[in-house]
């Protein structure tokens, strides 16, 4: 049952919880956005519980009727469940009676209904309240009054949509269809990878000591990869001097960066010339290079693709190492990064072994991605006393459109474009 205060309902933001936005440029962001409690609460309501599509699970996670998974939209707990007709339902994981979690495991199978453990109220697979224990009381005593309208008491229901085996949910009736939401350019890059049935290979959770947006920025930051990650530069997995670029959706929120396996040509010495640490060419070699042995899998020479859907979904292809990542806020200064490694159901044993080896590149212990685990915390701590100062996101200009280079922060600016629109800043 939903009662909203007037002020909440009416509240149209004219300024931020922290005063006016410092400067109307996508190239400047004040550091309080990573620190302010009121702003964090507002993100829950304006982003995660509003007009955004949020990743909730894979179709492969819930193949059969009654299969369910639990997840969160920001801090909103939800249940995603496969219905009898094969459709997928999603509703708030909160009992309509006194608010207990209805399900408190990662997932499982309930046959036809969920039963709250507290007082045994029960729900069908669409989240409709169906049963109330002792609704009529005993010997005419107790029970619910006759005029109690059970239908009007249900957990909040979410809309769901599926795309290439991914399941997204939104609490808002106004969120546009997923294809429009993502935009055709980025959409094509999702279809490129998720082109046949997948199989999950492993799951891990990586808690990070930073605000959730610092990680999302990091993922969208095509500029940092080869400058922070020695592996990418040294082994030419991804250098700014290699072919590639970044696609940014018109609304800014979604992106896909890519590196193409072509030689660097004239710029081959650029890293050495600038004495960039990550160029260990010649100084660092692998005793067993099999971790880098990959095969062309998608027929387009794209050896690395990182893709994000606003606000918190990430799809990764690094050589033959595939994963989806889900960003879950855990308060203003903490987040969880949920990793799901996958392959395809038709993988050969060799391809399976190749993926297992290449999984060394990513995740909490990834040769490549390890640094992304700590750098967000470095920013969180570096800006501790700088709430009213701003970050400078000006590489490649001040706009957020697709570019043929990765020496740009265009998709980071894109994130702030979408963020400010949702937050009303």
């Amino acid at each position: 049952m939903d009662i909203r205060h007037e002020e909440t309902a009416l509240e149209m933001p004219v300024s931020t919880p922290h005063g006016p936005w410092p400067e109307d440029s996508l190239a400047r962001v004040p550091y309080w956005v990573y620190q302010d409690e009121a702003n964090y609460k507002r993100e829950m309501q304006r982003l995660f519980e509003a007009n955004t599509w949020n990743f909730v699970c894979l179709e492969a996670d819930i193949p059969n009727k009654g299969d369910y998974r639990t997840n969160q939209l920001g801090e909103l707990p939800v249940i995603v469940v496969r219905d009898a007709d094969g459709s997928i339902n999603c509703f708030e994981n909160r009992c309509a009676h006194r608010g207990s979690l209805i399900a408190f495991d990662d997932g499982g199978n309930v046959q036809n209904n969920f039963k709250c453990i507290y007082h045994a109220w029960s729900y069908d697979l669409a989240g409709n309240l169906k049963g109330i224990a002792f609704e009529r009381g005993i010997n005419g005593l107790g029970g619910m009054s006759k005029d109690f309208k059970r239908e009007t008491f249900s957990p909040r229901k979410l809309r769901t949509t599926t795309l290439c085996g991914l399941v997204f949910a939104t609490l808002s009736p106004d969120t546009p269809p997923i294809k429009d939401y993502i935009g055709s350019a980025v959409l094509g890059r999702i279809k490129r990878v998720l082109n046949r049935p997948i199989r999950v290979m492993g799951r891990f959770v990586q808690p990070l000591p930073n605000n959730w947006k610092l990680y999302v920025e990091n993922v969208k930051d095509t500029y940092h990869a080869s400058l922070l990650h020695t592996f990418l530069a040294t082994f030419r997995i991804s250098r700014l001097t290699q072919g590639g670029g970044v696609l940014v959706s018109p609304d800014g929120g979604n992106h896909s960066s890519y590196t193409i396996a072509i030689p660097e040509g004239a710029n081959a010495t650029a890293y050495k010339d600038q004495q960039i640490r990550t160029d260990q060419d010649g100084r660092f070699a692998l005793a067993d290079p099999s971790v880098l042995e990959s095969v062309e899998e998608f027929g387009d020479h794209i050896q690395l693709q990182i893709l994000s859907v606003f606000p918190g979904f990430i799809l990764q292809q690094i050589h033959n190492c595939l994963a989806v990542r889900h960003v879950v806020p855990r308060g203003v200064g903490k987040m969880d990064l949920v990793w799901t490694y996958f392959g395809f159901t038709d993988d050969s044993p060799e391809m399976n072994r190749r993926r297992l080896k290449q999984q060394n590149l990513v995740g909490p212990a990834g040769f490549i991605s390890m640094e992304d685990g700590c750098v967000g915390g470095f920013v969180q701590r570096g800006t501790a006393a700088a709430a009213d100062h701003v970050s400078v996101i000006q590489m490649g200009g001040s706009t957020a459109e697709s570019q043929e280079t990765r020496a740009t922060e265009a998709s980071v600016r894109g994130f702030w474009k979408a963020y400010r629109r949702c937050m009303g800043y």
Partner: protein
Amino acid sequence: MDITRLVELNAAYARVIDNEQFEEWPKLFHDPCLYKVTTAENVAAGLEGGLIYADTRGMLEDRISSLRKVNIYERQRYRHIVGLPVVLGQANGAADVETPFLIVRIMREGTMDVFATGCYRDKVKPDEAGALRFAERIVVCDGRRFDTLVAIPF
């Protein structure tokens, strides 16, 4: 297999890591070998994927050269507390062993966290010289969470 020698192998294993003598670590494995870090949940679900996956001593050495030379992270160290090995079975000189462990991570500025707990599932056999070495060490962590990053092996 003599339990005392297994205990000593595990003590040596913990010591080279906790004393930051990382280069000694790969030497405690056979080559080829299998070293994997995963979780009880992945094992139970039959998911093969690992946080770390190495099937040659070379891959173990690469872990060390990488953490020494190229990876970036804040200074930290581990303290292993290793329980008593339980020998599950033996066949032609090799033993299947299970050993519980607890790892405390100590960060540069001094914070101490229970970083991981779990069970080593090992295949142990002597090398040519008769010294016990790991043919297989599957690190099965009890929990699914790996805070910030994992630079140092478990």
